[in-house]
């Protein structure tokens, strides 16, 4: 098989590629960041590259215009080399995988997802650390053990158990062979003064680690929320319960598809699962590194982590084949994953550190939702409540302490700033708030950190669409009206409304956002209807997701993403998945609670519900086809 040399610019990286393999495969092998929402199926048209030199065979596609073809642009996933080739990857074809800086992380805009969760507007019941007894996943004990004497000559291990039991009443203790092998020497070299790390592993206690001298004050854990689009991690002092720092990054799996289904399909390709697995653990390991460096912590003192994520993300984290999640009858390999050693999954903590996953509910409602319910306390509420996660998978939970039912809406990443022309995540320079003057269509906006506008984030889009509706710039179907204004122009994807210079919204964007909001609203509406209620019966609506408390409720109702009920019923819980994961790392009670919650929640399959499609199409309108559901929205 002939091989060709492929050089990528501006990265200046080269690889030998077999004839018949695509440029996308070459770029991925080199670990180059290239956008491919459809994971190389030739559908999304995002992996455009420029052939600078050499011969290629490019399969025909409607995603490349005749003009682009003339310029030498082609889709990397449909292009095979016929000679040595030089390729340029334009900036537009890259995925924005940049990290979220400390500065951004602590801006008030990012309340919830990136800020210390305790600063989140508290809802009742408050997210209270004291609800759960402090008993972290990994506990350190400093022991000054009596040395063996002729009168007291029980074995070293039994001696260790005896000393532990003096402090904690633990019946069953397990120890790995590695620890036993070292025990004799270690005890004697450390004068029988040691720190032992006890781990809660699936209702038994394990001696995870034995160290010389006293390190008991240095015991840290990391809570993770692994989202389809964003990964967040939070460093916690397991002794003091203090949060030492929070980091977030885009999930680099985006290179292999923007939604979970595309990624599951990608996992079945050659090396697909491997790559997806590495993309997620790389992101997590980077977060860990940054957190420990900033806080000057030794990695050996990070003894455990807890991961909350949707079922597919957890499968990929553990490198478990997710194939059967998307095959009827949609069964995951595991919802309840036992506590494992983090090293087995490739997460770099203390080499014997533990990794726990928050139990999931079904293939499409995962541990992130369990953690969310735990965090907002929906499972303890007397009255009917709704939890809405405005994320890529749009999970919904309806219920109270009596019962809970959940569904996944598959909203897509539009509200997380992906798949829309000027979309960006909630970071510095994102337009987050928009007001439009009805009389002359002038636009007033604010950006995060008051920086130069770079793009529009989720809350900005919700504001923008609501304001465009109110100003009569778009009709209820989301089409831009024929107005005499220099802000309106016709672009490639239909009409566009310009906010400033290069920041605009197109009719195609509005369509995308309309589908996302329709998916979320209709899923909630179906659940409420299915249980024989109306939205008016819902006394509290917990809103989770990256919006934090910056989402303008009135505007969200105006575009029909949230139901038209009394505004004070809405409560923001921020990144409830991360908060729940933190609760769990700090308390074994919370783990048991999470398991109870996961068992208690019934999963409702929207795709087989006869009314869902109808409800969805009815929601593809601003605010809704059935205007009676939004009596207070008039424009």
């Amino acid at each position, binding site marked *: 098989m002939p091989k060709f040399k492929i050089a990528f610019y501006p990265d200046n990286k080269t690889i030998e590629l077999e004839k018949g393999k695509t440029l996308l495969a070459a770029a991925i092998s080199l670990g180059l960041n290239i956008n491919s929402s459809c994971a190389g199926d030739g559908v999304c048209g995002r992996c455009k590259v420029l052939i600078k030199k050499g011969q290629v065979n490019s399969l025909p596609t409607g995603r490349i215009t005749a003009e682009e073809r003339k310029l030498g642009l082609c889709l990397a996933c449909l292009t095979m080399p016929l000679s040595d080739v030089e390729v340029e990857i334009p900036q537009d074809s890259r995925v924005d995988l940049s990290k979220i800086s400390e500065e951004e992380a602590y801006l008030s805009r990012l309340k919830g997802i990136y800020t210390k969760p305790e600063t989140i507007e508290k809802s009742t019941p408050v997210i209270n650390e004291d609800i759960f007894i402090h008993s972290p996943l990994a506990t350190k004990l400093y022991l000054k053990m009596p040395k063996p004497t002729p009168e007291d000559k029980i074995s070293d291990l039994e001696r260790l158990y005896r000393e532990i039991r003096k402090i904690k009443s633990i019946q069953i203790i397990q120890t790995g062979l590695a620890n036993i092998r070292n025990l004799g020497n270690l005890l004697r070299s450390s004068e029988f003064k040691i720190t032992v790390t006890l781990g809660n592993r699936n209702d038994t206690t394990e001696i995870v680690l034995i160290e010389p001298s006293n390190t008991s004050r240095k015991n840290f854990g990391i809570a993770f929320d692994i989202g389809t689009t964003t990964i967040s991690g939070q460093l916690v002092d397991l002794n003091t319960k203090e949060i030492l720092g929070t980091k977030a990054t885009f999930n680099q799996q985006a290179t292999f598809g923007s939604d979970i289904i595309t990624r599951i399909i990608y996992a079945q390709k050659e090396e697909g699962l491997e790559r997806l697995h590495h993309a997620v653990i790389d992101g997590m390991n980077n977060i860990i590194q940054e957190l420990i460096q900033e806080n000057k912590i030794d990695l050996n003192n990070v003894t455990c982590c807890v991961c909350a994520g949707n079922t597919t993300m957890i499968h990929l984290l553990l490198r478990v084949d997710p194939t059967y999640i998307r095959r009827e009858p949609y069964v995951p390999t595991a919802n309840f994953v036992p506590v494992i050693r983090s090293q087995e999954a490739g997460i770099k903590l203390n080499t014997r550190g533990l990794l726990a996953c928050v139990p999931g509910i079904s293939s499409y409602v995962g541990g992130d939702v369990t953690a969310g319910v735990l965090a907002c306390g929906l499972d303890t509420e007397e009255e009917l409540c709704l939890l809405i996660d405005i994320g890529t998978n749009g999970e919904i939970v309806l219920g109270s302490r009596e019962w809970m039912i959940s569904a996944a809406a598959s909203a897509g990443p539009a509200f997380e700033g992906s798949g829309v022309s000027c979309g960006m995540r909630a970071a510095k320079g994102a337009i987050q708030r928009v007001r439009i003057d009805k009389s002359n269509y002038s636009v007033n906006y604010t950006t995060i950190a008051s920086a130069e506008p770079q793009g529009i984030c989720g809350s900005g889009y919700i504001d923008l669409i609501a304001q465009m509706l109110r100003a009569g710039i778009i009709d209820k*179907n989301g089409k831009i009206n024929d107005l005499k204004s220099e802000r309106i122009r016709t672009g490639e994807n239909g009409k566009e409304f310009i906010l400033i210079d290069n920041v605009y919204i197109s009719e195609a964007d509005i369509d995308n956002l309309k589908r996302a909001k329709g998916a979320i609203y209709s899923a909630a509406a179906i659940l409420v209807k299915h249980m024989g209620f109306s939205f008016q019966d819902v006394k509290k609506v917990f809103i989770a997701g990256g919006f934090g408390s910056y989402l303008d409720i009135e505007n969200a109702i105006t575009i029909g993403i949230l139901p038209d009920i009394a505004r004070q019923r809405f409560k923001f819980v921020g990144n409830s998945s991360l908060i729940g994961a933190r609760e769990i790392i700090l308390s074994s009670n919370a783990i048991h609670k999470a398991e109870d919650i996961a068992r208690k929640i019934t999963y409702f399959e929207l795709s087989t519900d006869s009314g869902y499609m109808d409800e969805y199409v009815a929601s593809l309108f601003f605010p809704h086809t059935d205007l009676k559901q939004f009596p207070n929205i008039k424009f």
Partner: protein
Amino acid sequence: MPLELLKEKCSNAIDVVEIGATASEGGSRDRVVKVGGQTGLPFLFEEMDAPNKPQVAIEIFDTEPADWPDTLKEPYGEALKNPVDWAIKCEKEFKADLLALRLSAIHPDSGNKSADEAVKLIRDVLSAVKIPLIIIGCNDEAKDNLVLPKIAEAAKGERCLIGDALQKNYKTLTAACLAYGHNIIAESPIDINIAKQLNILISEMGFAVNRIVINPTVGALGYGLEYAYSIMERARLAALGGDRILSQAFICFVGQEAWRAKEAKTTAKECPEWGNELERGILWETVTASAFLQAGADILIMRHPKAIELIKKNIEELMKR
């Protein structure tokens, strides 16, 4: 004890739409065709009232149809070659109550006739016949947006029914119908939600809802008739239950659908076991039409004069109290 039937009363009635204007109203038609006004499900006179009966419009074209089978061409003969003659034949010979003129030759790919030619044709037809007119574009958005407003202007005062407005292209036609006092056809792809969304969009431009006629899109017998039927039935039930934004008359393009079916077109020579094609084609159209009458159709657009005769008889019988 005598059995007492349970009667269902509906809270809402279907809007009445008036097509055509007489001289006293500023037009030149000899009659005004009214449809709608039902207060219950079709023909259940125990429970409801229907002040207006369903109407049949004969569909004619601005150019000789290329894809019509001989059985369909035969009754019109030479008149097919001249739209004005064709219109006159429909009025005089086939006693049409309504005429549906489809401007297929303005389409850029089949004739590309100019707006002026189309306007002239409409003027000629309006002066040649006295029955109210339904005017349909060519399904090319850009061309329809160019031609239909001029047609609307030329037919000012005649209170025609002009279509079709689509969800992605309704503004130009709505504005034209609003300016020149016509009724509008709102087309949705067998989808009750989109039908409603389009009605909202049109009415938000200041267009009176009761001047909208819903084209729910139908399928012929054997080609999705049941699906179309159920959508119409659902829309009608919603309307009668109080949904004002879905309470409009239905227009069903039965002829177009029925004569596309191979069962209607194939000759006996090609398929001897199917029997005589004339009878078969006529019945295919008639049976399709009669099903939609039961679903609540108010205006049927049909093609074969014999099928029209049969369906009119069917309507008379159904309307007997």
